[in-house]
């Protein structure tokens, strides 16, 4: 594996940098078309209600209103993202299932008229009791969200690998802990929007989408059209984080409004509507049991989870499987049991948020592992190193792990963070915690069943060779894939990054790619791009061979120069060879595609979590806690990742920072709160508590030297992996600082304060009892976890 690269491995500036810093970059909501109308969707004010009647006549009479549509005007085919449960309709016809469910839509001359028109649509509801608490959604007598899903069970998973009961029976120590994770929301800064227009039977939609291909597939399906008649164009995207992976009412209703009016229609969500559409992180109840030997080696683990799906499935079946599937990655053990119920509630639907399914289970497992370490008197760093996965191993659920340097990550972060010194000497109120994470490098299987390749790419070299354009269906949602893929294309071609252009993504122009999710693009899109680049290079060398009269296999092309490997002859420039190729042989094109190998086992759900490669990482965080207020100050965070060959170091560390930022918010501050009617109480960025620049601690991010043999140039995942350790790392740092464990997310100041107060009360009682027994009071109080019951319920907060 030569590290002799001209283009990859360098922090070249982003290809979209100049456009983005000057405001020239156009996002979907910045686009305007002649004769364009504005569209808005009317949503339900009730969490659960029967629709008795809808009267649109007054809205239709308002000047400036061009169309009003309800369920009568749209296809009734149910849609969703996980094909096993298509359960969502463009508009509700019988009942609404959450505050924000779609009821009708309008197209008007301007935005103001839209809001007026929505107010004039009269919907008569019969309000029904709502299932708002996911912990009780399966109970007898609970309201049914969907009649066809008894006890509100959306997904049920029972998997066992090895012999868990036997291993637990033989274990030196067995412990069970329970944790609760909260609902969070991706909160990209760019709101969702779409512009739909028709040309006869062809539908074109500009959309802020993470996957033009899935949009094209699902929109064609919904309207019973050939895929070739649906064109999805992705302008610049202002963040996604999983929230823009599936078509919304904006695309479906917008397409119908555009068809009816014969005009382009721009539909959009405002911030509150984004929160209501949601598809954010599921709230989860997580019970974890492990058995360990006397050295802390994990012998078996049991995960028993319950997940709040909200009113629809979205990608939630995958989320449910991921929650358990990714748990056995960072530590090696043979016996594993995973049980899960994903339940429907009358709340917005949850889906895939950065780290899909994994961060909360990781929080539970990493917190639990520290409790186990404390029980046995083992250093938290040591118990992780003892259990760390080795390369070229297979998880109990049949995931093959090639490269894996989790042990090196832990050892490095131990040094970087000055772990051993701090562990000994930090005073009460200061604490340090560690946690690990791992994530897929692209999903082994597509979201819907198809044998199409996962990625494809073209490269077109300009006729005079002065530029080359990469055509890809992949999506730069901010992570920098346009830049990284252009680096990879230039490297494979022997060309210069500075001369690369990119077109991404437009389903009519760019070849298939499944898009930005599951941290797949550098690896999978990159594999297709590398192949395309190599095809260009092969043709360039063949042409140069003719021009120089030397065998092609004696020639090399690097940094835009073609030269002989053995002879001292004049080199040719890429430009002159490319031009000659165009004159003599026609357009100079390269093509590539990528399909993963068959992966995973044969049990039910075996596909979810499969991936050709897995990233690994370890984080340490140091916190200071104000005992009076519970306020948490983050002193520093150290992250070390094993993410294979690094294509662009600056962009890579930017991904770690961003993933960590999201994890940090979820750990302590962020939470979507509902009132007792199922209405979101904090559907704004300030009250949702997105962290600002002053909230962020110093972050040190490093990578270990790593090479993934299956990936192009040895690359693997980075974009989501760094979210996975963060929640557990905070939990452990707080535990270390105060000796109390907060068992639910977010680990808010209030919960920490409450836990400290209860700890003091327990100590007072112990002291009094000791005094009564005439004992010396300096007997240490055993570390105890705070019982779950002592905390405020996560949801029912009827203020």
């Amino acid at each position: 594996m030569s590290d002799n690269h001209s283009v990859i491995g360098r922090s070249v500036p982003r290809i979209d940098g100049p456009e983005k810093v000057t405001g020239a970059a156009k996002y979907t909501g910045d686009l305007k078309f002649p004769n364009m109308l504005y569209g808005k969707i009317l949503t339900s004010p009730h969490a659960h209600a029967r629709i008795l009647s809808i009267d649109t006549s007054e809205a239709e009479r308002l000047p400036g209103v061009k169309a009003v549509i309800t369920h009568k005007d749209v296809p009734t085919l149910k849609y969703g993202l996980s094909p096993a449960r298509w359960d969502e309709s463009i508009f509700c016809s019988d009942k609404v299932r959450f505050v924000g469910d779609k009821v009708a839509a309008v197209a008007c001359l301007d935005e103001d008229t839209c809001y007026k028109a929505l107010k004039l649509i009269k919907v008569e509801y019969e309000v029904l009791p709502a299932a708002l608490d996911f912990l009780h959604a399966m109970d007898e007598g609970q309201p049914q969200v969907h009649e066809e899903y008894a006890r509100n069970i959306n997904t049920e998973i029972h998997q066992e690998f090895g012999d868990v009961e036997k291993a637990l029976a033989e274990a030196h120590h067995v412990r069970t802990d329970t944790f609760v994770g909260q609902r969070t929301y991706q909160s990209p800064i760019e709101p969702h929007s779409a512009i739909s227009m028709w040309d006869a039977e062809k539908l074109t939609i500009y959309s802020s989408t993470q996957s033009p291909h899935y949009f094209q597939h699902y929109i064609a399906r919904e309207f019973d059209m050939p895929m070739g008649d649906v064109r999805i164009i992705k302008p610049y995207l202002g963040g996604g984080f999983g929230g823009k992976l599936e078509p919304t009412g904006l695309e479906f209703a917008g397409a119908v409004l555009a068809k009816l009016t014969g005009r382009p229609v721009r539909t959009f969500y405002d911030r509150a509507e984004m929160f209501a559409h949601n598809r954010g992180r599921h709230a989860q109840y997580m019970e974890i049991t492990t058995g360990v030997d006397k050295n802390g080696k994990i012998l078996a683990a049991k995960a028993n989870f319950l997940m709040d799906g909200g009113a629809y499935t979205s990608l939630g079946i995958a989320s449910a499987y991921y929650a358990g599937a990714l748990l056995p990655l960072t530590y090696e053990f043979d016996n594993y049991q995973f049980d899960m119920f994903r339940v429907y509630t009358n709340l917005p639907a949850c889906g895939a948020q950065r780290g899909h399914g994994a961060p909360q289970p990781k929080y539970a497992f990493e917190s639990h592992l520290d409790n186990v370490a404390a029980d046995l008197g083992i250093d938290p760093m040591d118990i992780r190193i003892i259990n760390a996965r080795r390369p070229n191993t297979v998880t109990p659920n049949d995931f093959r792990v090639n490269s894996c340097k989790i042990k090196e990550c832990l050892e490095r972060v131990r040094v970087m963070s000055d772990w051993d010194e701090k562990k000994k000497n930090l005073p009460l109120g200061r604490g340090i915690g560690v946690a690990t994470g791992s994530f897929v490098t692209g999903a082994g299987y597509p979201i819907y069943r198809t044998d199409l390749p996962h990625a494809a790419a073209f490269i077109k070299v300009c006729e005079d060779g002065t530029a080359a354009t990469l055509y890809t269906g992949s999506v730069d949602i901010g992570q920098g894939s346009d830049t990284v893929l252009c680096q990879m294309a230039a490297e494979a071609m022997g060309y210069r990054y500075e001369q690369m252009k990119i077109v991404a993504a437009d389903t009519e122009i760019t070849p298939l790619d499944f898009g930005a999710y599951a941290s797949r693009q550098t690896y999978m899109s990159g594999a297709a791009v590398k192949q395309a680049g190599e095809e260009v290079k092969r043709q360039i060398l063949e042409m140069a061979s003719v021009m120089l009269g030397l065998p092609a296999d004696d020639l090399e092309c690097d940094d835009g120069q073609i030269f002989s490997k053995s002879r001292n002859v004049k080199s040719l420039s890429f430009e002159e060879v490319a031009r000659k190729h165009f004159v003599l042989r026609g357009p100079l094109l390269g093509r590539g595609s990528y399909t993963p190998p068959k992966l995973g086992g044969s049990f039910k759900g075996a596909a979810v979590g499969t991936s050709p490669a897995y990233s690994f990482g370890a984080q340490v965080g140091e916190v200071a806690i104000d005992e009076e207020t519970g306020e948490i100050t983050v002193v520093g965070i150290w992250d070390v990742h094993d993410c294979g060959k690094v294509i662009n170091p600056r962009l890579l560390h930017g991904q770690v920072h961003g993933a960590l930022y999201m994890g940090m918010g979820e750990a302590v501050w962020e939470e979507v709160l509902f009132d007792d009617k199922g209405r979101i109480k904090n559907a704004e960025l300030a009250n949702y508590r997105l962290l600002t620049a002053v909230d962020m601690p110093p972050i040190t991010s490093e990578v270990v030297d790593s090479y993934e043999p299956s990936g192009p140039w040895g690359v693997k995942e980075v974009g989501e992996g760094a979210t996975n350790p963060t929640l557990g790392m905070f939990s452990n740092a707080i535990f270390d600082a105060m000796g109390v464990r907060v068992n639910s997310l977010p680990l808010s100041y209030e919960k920490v304060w409450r836990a400290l107060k209860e700890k003091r009360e327990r100590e007072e009682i112990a002291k009094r009892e000791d005094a009564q027994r005439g004992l010396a009071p300096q007997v240490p109080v055993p570390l105890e976890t705070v019982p779950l019951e002592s905390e405020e319920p996560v949801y029912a907060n009827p203020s």
Partner: protein
Amino acid sequence: MAQAITDKDGVKRYLITLNVNGDAHTILVKGNAILTNVLRDQLDLTGTKKGCELGDCGSCTVLLDGKPVDSCLVLAVEADGRQITTIEGVMENGRLDAIQQSMINHAAVQCGYCTPGMVLSAKALLTRNPHPNEQEVREAISGNLCRCTGYVHIVEAVLATAQGRVTPDDH
């Protein structure tokens, strides 16, 4: 006070002049029109982004007489006759401003949606305080939310600009 014109339905509009990036635009706006929408929809200056319309995210930051403001919290009529700088007015003579170049060099841009507001807040800071320390930088951009970067590279980019450490390609 701007001249008001009432249409046949009784809706009042105001004739105002916005001085944007050195160009004077005389336009008619409703009394409740926010500056963000007027810049974007009437003047086609879409570099000013809309993220929340509540003053939370800062994507719509513009300089009003040199001071950074959330343009979604400013009525267009309030900006009548005043000097507005949007992101489109930061480049001079076709050259990137040092803060823009620094944002590129430090990979301080990811999705780019917060970037225009971030650039303007940073520029305003460096104008009033050419040598800020890290805390002052963080405070100056604390009204601009970024969901991508954790602010790490943004803070580095602003500090590098303040310290004169910006070259066209110092990556």
